[in-house]
């Protein structure tokens, strides 16, 4: 029989003692259920599973549990591989905090001074190439990120990238100077920073390669990286507005493996997948004047 509902508005609230008697079992049960859930879950995860798995990895119980708890590397069930290789880097650039601080420091007196003394003759005081006809030989630095400029300077200095003019210049300077001048050029040419977003014209296949890439060849779009703030590798330069001869020369050098200071071969791989005709067409596509 369903209880006859009472008229509740007239019913007095229960006394404090009554309410407390009603509440206590709930508190105890809730705490009990939660505590036992954590205990059982923890026991299985931290003890029982590693105990059951450790034999395969020839581990002691202590080490198996340390692995299950994330205090040691590796799985409690499998022996951990050991590295025996030694380092053979293609570029020795390193993004340590001290360098990152200089790169973020912008237009400093030190950077401006080095630029004026050493760089401006070819690259201009705002990073615009000073060699114009028939096409710029020196790349423009205008609108590049400090990371992009510093990466190449550091590679010229270390020998990871070789160039008759740039190698001796970069070797004259300390890495901190390179970072300062990179920060200077990036900050001094801020007005060109959006250059990569400029509308360009090319035939549809080339536009597709630049904007969409080619999934079939596993080629990402050029513009997935080569625009400031595209979210790609930080050292990626902007290529829009660079001279076509310069772009083509670099693409060919990457494709042949003659230039290989791109970390993990990102550009060697991309350029190698492009046909010579596509490389030339892309170089034309991205050329423009600032």
């Amino acid at each position: 029989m369903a209880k006859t509902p009472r008229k509740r508005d007239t019913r007095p609230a229960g006394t404090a003692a009554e309410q407390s008697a009603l509440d206590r079992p709930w508190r105890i049960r809730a705490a009990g259920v939660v505590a036992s859930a954590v205990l059982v879950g923890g026991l299985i995860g931290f003890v029982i599973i590693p105990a059951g798995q450790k034999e395969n990895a020839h581990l002691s119980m202590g080490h198996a549990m340390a692995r299950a708890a994330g205090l040691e590397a590796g799985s409690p069930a499998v022996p951990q591989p050991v590295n025996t290789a030694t380092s053979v880097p293609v570029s020795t650039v390193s993004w340590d905090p001290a360098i990152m601080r200089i790169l973020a420091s912008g237009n400093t007196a030190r950077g401006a001074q080095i630029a004026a003394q050493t760089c401006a003759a070819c690259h201009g005081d705002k990073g615009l190439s000073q060699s114009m006809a028939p096409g710029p030989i020196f790349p423009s630095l205008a609108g590049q990120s400090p990371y992009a400029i510093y990466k190449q300077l550091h590679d010229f200095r270390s020998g990871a990238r070789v160039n008759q003019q740039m190698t001796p210049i970069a070797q004259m300077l300390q890495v901190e100077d390179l970072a300062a001048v990179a920060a200077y050029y990036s900050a001094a040419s801020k007005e060109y920073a959006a250059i990569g977003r400029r509308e360009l014209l090319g035939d549809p296949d080339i536009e597709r390669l630049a904007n969409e890439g080619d999934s079939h060849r596993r080629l990402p779009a050029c513009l997935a990286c080569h625009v400031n703030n595209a979210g790609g590798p930080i050292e990626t330069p902007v290529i829009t507005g660079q001279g076509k001869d310069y772009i083509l020369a670099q693409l060919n050098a990457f494709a042949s493996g003659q230039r290989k200071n791109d970390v993990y071969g990102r550009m060697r791989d991309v350029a190698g997948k492009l046909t010579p005709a596509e490389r030339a067409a892309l170089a034309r596509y991205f050329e423009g004047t600032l």
Partner: protein
Amino acid sequence: MAARPRRRDAAALETGRLVMAHIWVAIAVFALACLLGVWQMWARSPLNAPYHTAANYFRSVTLHGVSMGYVLTTFFIMGFGYYVAETSLRRPLPSLALAWGSFWLGIVGTLMAALSVVSGNASVLFTFYPPLTATPWFYIGLVLVVVASWIWCLIMIFAMRTWKAENPGEPVPLAMFATVANAVMWLWTTVGVAAELLFQVIPAAFGWTQTVDVGLSRTLFSWTLHAIVYFWLFPSYIAFYTMFPRAAGGRLYSDTMGRLAFVLFIIYSLPVGLHHLFMDPEHSNGFKFLQMFLTALVSVPTFLTIFTITASAEVAGRMRGGKGLFGWIGALPWERPMVLATGLAFFMLFWGGGGGLINMSYGMNAMIHNTSWVTAHFHLIFGGTVVIMYQAICYSIWPSITRRDFASLKPLRLQLWLWFIGMMVMTLPWHWLGLQGQWRRVAAFDYSNPLIHSWGPWVIVSLVGGIILALSALLFIYNLAMLHRRGVAGAPASIEYAQAVHPPERVPSSLNGFGLWNIIVAVLMLLAYGWPIAQFFVSPPPQAVVHRLG
């Protein structure tokens, strides 16, 4: 039993305009996001979609996710919460002005975030992925939306407190108890993402920091990532427990189980977020298992709900003359949108929940992690169970706000059926493709690859599902618009919520408030997330360089 005498004879809902403003914003954003979703399916299919570039695709995905996950949900939940507060407590809101203030704050935040995405400066998806960072205004916009929702939470909590002070010893009406449960849970939930945005992502986006601790940011986001789904889901459960039984013409089978289910959601939806990071290297197997175990427990309130609501349906069906083991099913008033939607929602919950059981199964997660299987799972739970109940709620409460009744329920039923069919047609192929390894978040597939060549037709099938969904979304707007324009005057100014078979007379404090559960959540979070977060400070991992996207 007679309906409770009304405390205040409401000629009109005081919150009517407030509720409508919130929910119309939610619906407008929802419709836009549906259309984007169709285009995304088109872009991924073997057919040629217009405007198809990688940049456009990720812009669209970001807008779709942010609109559905943050804007539609937050605005709907806030609007519905105000409605429940006024109609279930039968007293005015503590502060209508504050509620409007939070609405406009949410609008400002939404516009900031939306403009950031549309301009192409925030294609980082709604789950962010640092060290990728967008323009800071994107995150600040989202923070404003969250702050708006915090104001809502405080209004809800304060409304319940005031009511309790005025009605000592009486059980808070279940609909309001559940709404406040959601507010309490949401305050806990947003701690993770707020910490991630304020201490890590926004400083990086402004350029104040050049590196970011990726493990920590993912862990903080995971804190939010599971419980946020329950935040979205709460209104559906409120409708299951407090609206469906009445719409079906019966009673709620058990009020206590309703309260218990809502409380279980609070405590078990939070300490389980690591199950989103099962495939990550930075968390140990031990903590992954512990949180998997707690995840298994969060399935309990859902299973309890399935039974309680099915039993409530059985009560209604039998009261309407249904006989035998299954006869009550046919006797239910399926012509009512709330009844039909609940039935369809349960069907989608079956598929979505089943997919979720696979996802949470520890090592088995490797089979489907980041495949279309997962996309199918959360579209069924969110797009299916959640959204179809949002639609049914709108259909049920709109007459009381506009004081007009629908001239016919036929287009309403058609819309719900279309939504259901579209969702099934879209997501069943995704399950199948996910099992074969179709991976997520790509703008295009190379169908000339023999390994994935056979996927093409299935993607087209799901595109068809997407089109049906978009049609249903537009019909939904049309239905509500027609009610405004051509509705039949005379609807009552409020709704009645379902009564329980045994209406609660006195309930333990723990089922009438949240003090105990807040303590339990704090302890559980300390145990489940304490070390997983502390490890990044005890032994700091190397940081990653910020990659600016926008």
